[in-house]
């Protein structure tokens, strides 16, 4: 894990509200694994005070990518960064996806910005694995396909692709891939992860989900980001024990 002052190599708007940020960050680039995240300092001042967590979207040589939306003040400040600005990032943090194994197809289920970690995952999958990506969004102009392949789209308002949630789309389409052995990788808002988890558990699918939590430190010292373990007896930390969990291990 590193604290790295990373220079902006590029920042690009890839749809009306989503930005793709490329940073020169050799230490993090060389050690990161798909599904991990960084805690990013968005301001030099004390307001906003805390770092902001972002999934590592991809790694390319000594550079890393983040994909983000303008959500509140922190992401707004981030969107104002310019070429050669320095951004202090802390990472790579957390446990990533477990993606080796004997399955044949990686079934990606992404809601909204949940797309973020998958370009990196797809890059690192061994070449013999197939990919089937399901992406959901509120409407057409928010669908994120960046870095994915073999994509099926669902929108809440039906403006493009399947009319409904991405989990409903998955249910409908799973039969076509169900002949192969597959593993599901999910990332998106917690309510969506909950629906995915339920579906996967009912069908005993191999499934990993990446969850969100409010965070202060991002690496296990503040205890700010608990998620209940499925036994109900204890809490795990999203930042340190996650953000990716086996769907069977946690209560969302």
């Amino acid at each position, binding site marked *: *894990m590193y*604290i790295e002052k990373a220079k902006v190599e590029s920042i690009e708007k890839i749809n009306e509200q989503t930005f793709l940020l490329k940073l020169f960050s050799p230490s993090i680039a060389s050690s990161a694994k798909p599904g991990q995240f960084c805690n990013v*300092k968005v301001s030099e001042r*004390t*307001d*906003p*005070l*805390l*770092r902001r967590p972002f999934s590592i979207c991809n790694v390319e040589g000594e550079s890393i990518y983040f994909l983000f939306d303008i959500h509140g003040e922190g992401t707004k400040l981030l969107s104002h960064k310019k070429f050669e600005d320095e951004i202090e990032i*802390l990472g790579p943090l957390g446990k990533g996806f477990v993606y080796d194994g004997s399955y044949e197809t990686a079934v990606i289920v992404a809601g909204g910005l949940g797309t973020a970690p998958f370009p990196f995952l797809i890059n690192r999958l061994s070449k013999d694995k197939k990919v089937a990506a399901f992406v959901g969004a509120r409407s057409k102009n928010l669908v994120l396909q960046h870095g994915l392949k073999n994509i099926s789209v669902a929108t809440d308002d039906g403006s493009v692709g399947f009319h409904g949630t991405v989990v409903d789309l998955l249910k409908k389409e799973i039969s076509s891939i169900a002949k192969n052995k597959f593993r599901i990788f999910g990332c998106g808002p917690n309510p969506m992860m909950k629906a995915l988890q339920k579906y996967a558990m009912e069908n005993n699918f191999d499934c990993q989900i990446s969850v969100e*939590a*409010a*965070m*202060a*430190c*991002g*690496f*296990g*010292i*503040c*205890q*700010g*980001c*608990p*998620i*209940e373990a499925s036994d109900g*007896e*204890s*809490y795990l930390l999203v930042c*340190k024990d996650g953000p990716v969990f086996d769907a069977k291990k946690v209560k969302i």
Partner: protein
Amino acid sequence: MSIDLSVNIGALKLKNPVLLASGTVGYGNEIAQFTDLSKLGGIVTKSLSLKPRKGNPPQRIVETPSGMLNAIGLANVGVEVFIKEKIPFLKELNTTLICNIAASTIEEYVECVNILKGEETIKAFEINVSCPNVKEGGLEFGNDINAVGRITEKVRAATNKPIIIKLSPNVSRISDFAKTVKQNGGDAVSAINTLVGTSFDINTRRPKIKNVTGGLSGPAIKPIALAKVLEIKRNVDIPIIGIGGIMNWKDAVEFMIVGASAIQLGTVNFINPNAGVEILQGLEEYCRKNSIEKLSSLTGSYQI
């Protein structure tokens, strides 16, 4: 010029005044990946209780202007597991270990101290009195001057190791509490713990923190913390560990000037886990520039 960075907190000798605060450094292992803890004056453990505590349900934290609220609920492994699983790592750190204890009865404080006091690695106890007092109706010990006196007295009777009472800022006159600590044999006080605060979601009308209220920390509270330290310094002759919103070496100097013998870093660790080492460097540099031979001479050197 070689600068003497060492400080004394009563009988407790520290190689320098920079400590990491309870609840913001866990048991040292995670933050050690980002910083060299052996350089620091010491670390204070997360509050330990007699039995392990699961802590509060989420959401436990929320950001506020230049600050944050937390209601972790004293999640900790308990004293037994601490001794078995955490002490071995802490022993290797080559920094002073201060054990912070939380309890909801006076007896429980004493019991924790009795279990822990045999551990050589533990050099002092910091008593967190900002926990609800179950027996006496759920009010905080920290706001009850008699309770603070009794806790100090009983813990004092249980151990010869230095005892630091960590004071609550949610009181009218914190110096009265420091006086009680002194009278009952406490070695030092830490000031301050967090201030009670809250934050609501205007759409759901629910508290953003599940526990409804949380403790406010970070730069927002620095002016309050400084005033509390100054108030104690001007009224009671007891060593003070200054805490509250320290972000950089300048803040640390400010706390020492108003009366702190040492300082603790809390929230800043989340933002910059290497802050302790950087602050230490800054303090040394400040001394060099100002020809200060003993860093401890800063303590209480205010010009009013």
